[in-house]
């Protein structure tokens, strides 16, 4: 673990992008009237499936009809 400590600052942009994407998808989910499938299911996918969850929701979960 000690050997990794000097590299922790390099992870900040990575964590920022990951969290930002998750928050962005969750805010969109809350504001959206309709989604393809139940909203609770998308909430779980966004939070639990790292990186892929928010991407799948934003590209395939929104009902824009």
């Amino acid at each position, binding site marked *: 673990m000690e050997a990794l400590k000097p590299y922790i600052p390099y992870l900040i942009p990575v964590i920022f992008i990951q969290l930002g994407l998750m928050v962005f998808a969750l805010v969109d989910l809350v504001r959206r009237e309709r989604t393809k499938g139940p909203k609770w299911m998308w909430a779980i996918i966004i939070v639990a499936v790292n990186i892929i969850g928010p*991407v799948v929701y934003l590209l395939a979960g929104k009902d824009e009809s």
Partner: protein
Amino acid sequence: MMTALTKEWLEQRRTHRLLIVCLILLLFGLLSPLLAKFTPEIIKMVPGGEQISQVIPPPTIADAVVQYLKNLTQFGLLLAVLMGMGMVSQEKDKGTAAMMLAKPLGRTAFILAKAAAMGASFLIGTALAAAAGYYYTLLLFEALPAGGWLALNGLLLIYFSVYAALTLLASTLNRSVLGSGVTAVGFVILLALIEMIPAAGKLLTGGLLGWAGNLALGSAEAPAWGALWVCLGLIAAALTASVLVFRRQEI
């Protein structure tokens, strides 16, 4: 054509496709050199990993390039399928394609504008990933040859375009997003099966990526021009097929 292009570019931004492709490719551009550097340390932390880590050689710049290629190809392929599967089928299903075509807009322009918009999104995303990957590799390892790195990313963009074009064809062939997704995954599996034949694999995306890795590391391995031409041919064939199918379809 310009109207169709403007509409598609707006659509890329409005549906967050541009944002997603940029963020994901940027993320893996940053993460790949880090993963290459961290992997031996992470293995050490796993119970019993101390002994395994002694056999693993210290990470090098080649590991960073391999990680970059591996991560970007996996997630780029996924993005190409997810972004492209609804592009035509959804518009046919919702009736927006019929509305667009009622205006003086050709069907060829309709398809090509979609391909160009998706290509532009991938171009920006790949440029961001390339800059991030180059910078982090420089900080954690050493400087990569700039020309080779640029060539690697150019070939990576062609790799993404192959799957984006095939997904666009899948989306043109189907009326539902789900059907398009299944067809696109079918194309991906078919291509992977063909690539398992050694002679054919050298002439497809596998050959292209092998060449890309060699270029980035300054290796003098033989260039895979054959793979490049076959991939460009695949893109052209998929787009031509999309246009021909769409021109004959009842919208």
